[in-house]
């Protein structure tokens, strides 16, 4: 099946070449980081995690979100997702790969990375995160390729894949729960020390991941004509809307607890993020952008007539992705480190090299995604025998 990735239009090859160019550019900066150390980043003694770990957090969510297709399709027999499901699984793969790479570029001693396996430490959440991410990657590779192979051969997928799929559903929840636990169990970090953290992570993952998937699917449709079907888009948009409402609701819960209780430790990070603390207000514009875009996305998503109208839907989705990316990425990480253990504010903003290293990882993700989706589309074209697979799913 992999041979499908080796034949393509100049546009396909051009995309790959472009991405490889970006990877090369970014890896130059990574070399720079490897030779000089993390001194090239904006990180500090007080804000010791930043942009890299923020991306890890966000993309674990994107990876987990494949479950929003898998669960309705396999548990509730929502057949409309039949064409789209492979896209979800194939989006999870690059998302997990990016997560792992963001951990690697964040390490001070990446060459010692295997120490996590050589000295397994069951009391460390990072140890579990490493396990669940790797297994999730494997699950999605197996499920994705086995079902695609079966589809190509016009056969039912082998029986043993069913339990594996069920496992992957539970696993998707587990990867994001474990990632939330990385933060939620630390006594000195008030912004993270919240029982609702895992629930917030899941709700934000289940709106932002499918939103990204849907946006990429629209792009795919524009480029190749691959059409997942109106009902699939409708169904997914509805899931995204509900998840985003829950996500906003959960954040309001945090605000209530912090401000009604009037506990300084709980209020300070939020005050820092939204109005600045001790004269530092570097994140204020970002957080308000996220707030406006987040609420704005609901304006486009909640009314059915907007949600079912692709241009309006796309606007809403873009707003949603940006809002959740700021909130769950930078907002969450920096909010957790600010104020520092001495109740002081140390400002963090990513540096240019840091962003370029991230660009390398993003481009690797995009490259893997392009190749995988190419395979998925080509297999469809082959089976359905028509160019560009314009046929909607049978159920419609």
């Amino acid at each position, binding site marked *: 099946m992999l041979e499908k990735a080796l034949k393509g239009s100049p546009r396909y090859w051009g995309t790959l070449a472009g991405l490889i160019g970006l990877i090369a550019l970014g890896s130059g900066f990574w070399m720079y980081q490897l030779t000089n150390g993390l001194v090239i980043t904006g990180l500090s003694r007080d804000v010791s995690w930043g942009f890299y770990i923020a991306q890890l957090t966000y993309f674990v969510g994107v990876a987990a979100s494949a479950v929003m297709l898998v669960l309705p399709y396999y548990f509730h027999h929502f057949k409309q997702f039949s064409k789209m499901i492979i896209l979800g699984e194939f989006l999870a793969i690059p998302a997990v790969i990016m997560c792992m790479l963001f951990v690697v570029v964040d390490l*001070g001693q990446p060459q010692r990375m295997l120490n996590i396996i050589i000295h397994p430490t069951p009391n460390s959440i990072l140890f579990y995160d490493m396990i669940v991410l790797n297994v999730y990657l494997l699950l999605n590779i197996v499920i994705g390729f086995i079902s695609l192979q079966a589809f190509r051969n016009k056969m039912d997928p082998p029986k043993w894949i069913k339990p594996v799929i069920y496992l992957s559903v539970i696993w998707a929840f587990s990867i994001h729960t474990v990632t939330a636990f990385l933060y939620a169990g630390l006594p000195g970090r008030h912004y993270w020390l919240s029982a609702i953290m895992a629930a917030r992570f899941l709700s934000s993952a289940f709106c932002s991941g499918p939103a990204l998937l849907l946006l990429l699917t629209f792009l795919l449709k524009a480029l190749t004509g691959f059409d997942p079907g109106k009902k699939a888009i409708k169904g997914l948009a509805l899931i995204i809307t509900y998840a985003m409402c829950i996500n906003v609701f959960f954040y309001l819960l945090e605000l209530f607890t912090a401000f009604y209780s009037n506990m300084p430790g709980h209020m300070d990070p939020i005050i820092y993020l939204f109005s600045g603390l001790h004269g530092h207000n570097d994140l204020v514009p970002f957080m308000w952008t996220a707030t406006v875009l987040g609420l704005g996305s609901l304006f486009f998503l909640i009314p059915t007539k907007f949600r079912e109208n692709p241009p309006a839907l796309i606007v809403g989705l873009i707003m949603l992705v940006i809002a959740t990316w700021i909130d769950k990425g930078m907002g969450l990480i920096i909010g957790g480190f600010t104020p520092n253990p001495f109740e002081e504010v140390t400002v963090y903003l990513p540096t240019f090299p840091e962003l370029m290293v991230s660009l390398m990882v993003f481009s690797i993700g995009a490259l893997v995604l392009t190749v995988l989706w190419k395979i998925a589309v080509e297999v469809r074209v082959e089976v359905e025998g028509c160019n560009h697979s314009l046929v909607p799913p049978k159920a419609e």
Partner: protein
Amino acid sequence: MKSSRRQFMKLAAASALGLGAGKLAFMGDAPAFASDIPTAATFEHPLKAKHWGMVIDTTKFTKELVEKCAHACRKQHNVPVIEGKKEVKWFWGGTFEEAFPNQIPEYLSEDVEKREIPLLCNHCESPMCVRVCPTQATFQRADGIVMMDMHRCIGCRYCMAGCPFGARSFNFQNPRPFIKDEDFNPNYPTRTRGVVEKCTFCTELLAEGKMPACVEVSEGALTFGDLGDENSEIRHLLREKFTIRRKPDAGTKPSVYYII
């Protein structure tokens, strides 16, 4: 596990020694340090305890004394001097507000407000840094000391997020150029970039039967001893004076007590 760790520490001490000697030969000034090189006899009478702890008498501390202790620590452990927010520090001073941010009274006595409070790793009884470390590069010894294996550390900085006291520093860059020549200690290893470090309660000195470097120069303001022995000097002091610990609500049970 624990005992193999102890063996490791011995080995590490021995290899540090080798390193020191190597450096001396290379620099061609071996005689200057030769007498400092430890031999097996040096480790014959180590200081031992059930649980090491420290009492800090803040009433005796001035900015100068804090700096004196900090300097002794830097000199003993080759701690680099780096300016700015990427600094590395094992022992330093802060205001009362910084040290005890969750217990500041609205009206603080002037004397305390001006006081320089020494800060260092608390060698917590339930250390969060140990709990989160994915490689056991940070580990707790049987005598309570929270120790680092800088050769195992992968630099993930999870321990820095976990420590509620800001006691840990990361080597964002190669620290060696930032060690002052006159403060270089050939008998203690330097670190590489990309690893985390912090106060070790001077395990290498305890192994030689000596008190921690900061305690030695503290003019009696720092008391170091066995919290597990009720007849120890430190327990006497704790019975006599009212003390507080930093952020007890974080649940890590610090082994460093402050007389205010």
